[in-house]
């Protein structure tokens, strides 16, 4: 009798679990179908209009192929750089006294809320051969040579690091809450070095935040377009730039569509691979 009861309860619980999952996942499934899957089908259809010719043309386009590699490396550099800068930035903000913390977060917030278009423009004003940096150098150090930073790699990456940095800092800062203060104290009491404490106590607590924020930054960075062209120079044409060129200027929506499909697929593949990889790494943590 009791056994039967247990079975019923278990069944009811399992049933409730299914209902629960359904309620949690169904709305988002509907939204995803309407908001991204159907539009994606539209794009796939557009890309296949001449029976795959657009894909052949895409793959034979040296502009596209070069942009694909360039975009990939750009995203890798931005992600690695920002994960490093962002983690320490967040740790600094979490460990700072009130004044410094307000400055660190205030500067970040002010920048983050400025429109991306306007921010790129600000970096341009800063980096122009006779822009704001030159003005500073000229006013305070009497420099008369123009500054060679605008439209170089060195002029491009700081701006892109700055644009993506908040997406690492805020989640990691939120995750510092998971750091166990008792463990930190214990580590200190037992004389563990700063580095060892960081590695064994702090880092495991914030690692999921770093990884998930890093994934977001990587995928977002694959979409960079205006900033690298403006600040790095026109040789930094990214895939998004080529797609815009085909769709908005060359009137080749089929090519733009096939390039979009390829970029999306490549991103998903990279994501799947890294998801597998990082899920494993989480088990180590």
């Amino acid at each position, binding site marked *: 009798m009791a056994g039967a009861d247990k079975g019923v309860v278990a069944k009811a619980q399992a049933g*409730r*679990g299914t209902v629960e999952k359904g309620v*949690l*996942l169904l709305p*988002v499934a509907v*939204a*995803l179908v309407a*908001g991204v899957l159907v*539009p994606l*089908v*539209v794009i796939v259809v557009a890309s296949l209009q001449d029976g795959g010719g657009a894909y052949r043309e895409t793959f034979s386009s040296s502009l596209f192929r070069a942009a694909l590699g360039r975009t990939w490396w750009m995203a890798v550099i931005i992600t690695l750089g920002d994960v490093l800068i962002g983690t*320490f930035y967040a*740790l*600094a903000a*979490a*460990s700072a006294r009130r004044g410094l913390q307000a400055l660190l977060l205030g*500067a*970040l*917030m*002010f*920048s983050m*809320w*400025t429109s991306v*278009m*306007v921010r790129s*423009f*600000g*970096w341009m*004003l*800063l980096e122009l051969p006779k*822009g704001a940096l030159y*003005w500073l150098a000229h006013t305070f150090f009497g420099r008369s040579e123009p500054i060679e930073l605008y439209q170089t790699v060195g002029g491009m990456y*700081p701006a892109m690091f*700055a644009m993506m*940095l*908040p997406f690492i800092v*805020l*989640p990691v800062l*939120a*995750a510092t*809450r998971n*750091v166990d203060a008792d463990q*930190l104290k214990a*580590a200190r009491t037992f004389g563990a070095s700063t580095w060892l404490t960081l590695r064994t106590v702090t880092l495991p*607590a914030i690692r999921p*935040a770093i990884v*998930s*924020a890093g994934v*977001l930054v990587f995928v977002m960075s*694959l*979409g960079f377009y205006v900033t690298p062209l403006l600040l790095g120079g026109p040789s930094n044409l990214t*895939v998004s730039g080529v797609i815009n060129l085909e*769709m908005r200027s060359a009137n080749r929506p089929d090519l*733009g*569509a096939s390039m979009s499909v390829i970029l999306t697929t490549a991103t*998903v593949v990279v*994501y*799947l691979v890294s*998801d597998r990889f990082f899920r494993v790494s*989480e088990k180590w943590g």
Partner: protein
Amino acid sequence: MTALRESLGKSGWAVRLAAGLAAFILFAVPALVLVATSWTEQRFALFPPKGFTLEWFGEVLTSKKWLQPFGRSATVAAIGTALAVILGVAAAIGVSRLRSSRAARAWRTVMILPLAVPPIALGVGLYNMGRWLNLSDGRMALLILGQMISALPFVFVLVAGAITRLDPNLHKAAQTLGANSWLIIRKVELPLLGPTILAAAVFAFVVIFDEVVLAVFLLPPGVETLPVTMLRASQETMTPALTAASTVVSLLAVLLLGGSQMVGRGKKGGADAP
């Protein structure tokens, strides 16, 4: 937090100095350059500014041309953020309940799609979908759907990441104590996920507030959000009104967040006093 500060020991000041430098170079200097151009007497933004005038702030703060799109953007971003947070958090919790790791992985992959599809392609897709459905009056809803979808990955990915750090025993313990699933979500999981959810909400809001590609595709003619107004204002001249507008938005955001921080601290102190 003090424990974290102490754990960094002597290297702490170096970390904080480096972060301060990063904040100065990456955030403060470019922002100051932009803000400076907003008080120039010239008709275009250029550094160094010439003279000083509040004319551009006046234009932005008094003309309907700027205020109306600002209000519309704030409204659209608020709706989109609320939806993205509800759907994204629900999805993250729902996926964590899935037993099949293959299903979970499929979900995680689909949830990244909105970020992976180039915005212009998403715009073309949604625009054509709207035409087929003959959605001439529902275009605003379609725009909110599209922008909400673009913000969804931020909420899902961050919250799903934070869930992996939750102690699985908490869930079991609560269940043993007879709590049903909703109670567990409400009383155990959401409070622990709070800081991450709120960070994700800020991202969602910022992303939607600044979204321009889908807006140009889907907004009904004559209706503008702030980024569209800024785009159209910037086509022929970088007018200082643009930098003034973005200065106002940033200041407002920092004051709002900073102000509520003060309030929060005051309340916290009061609650802790006894």
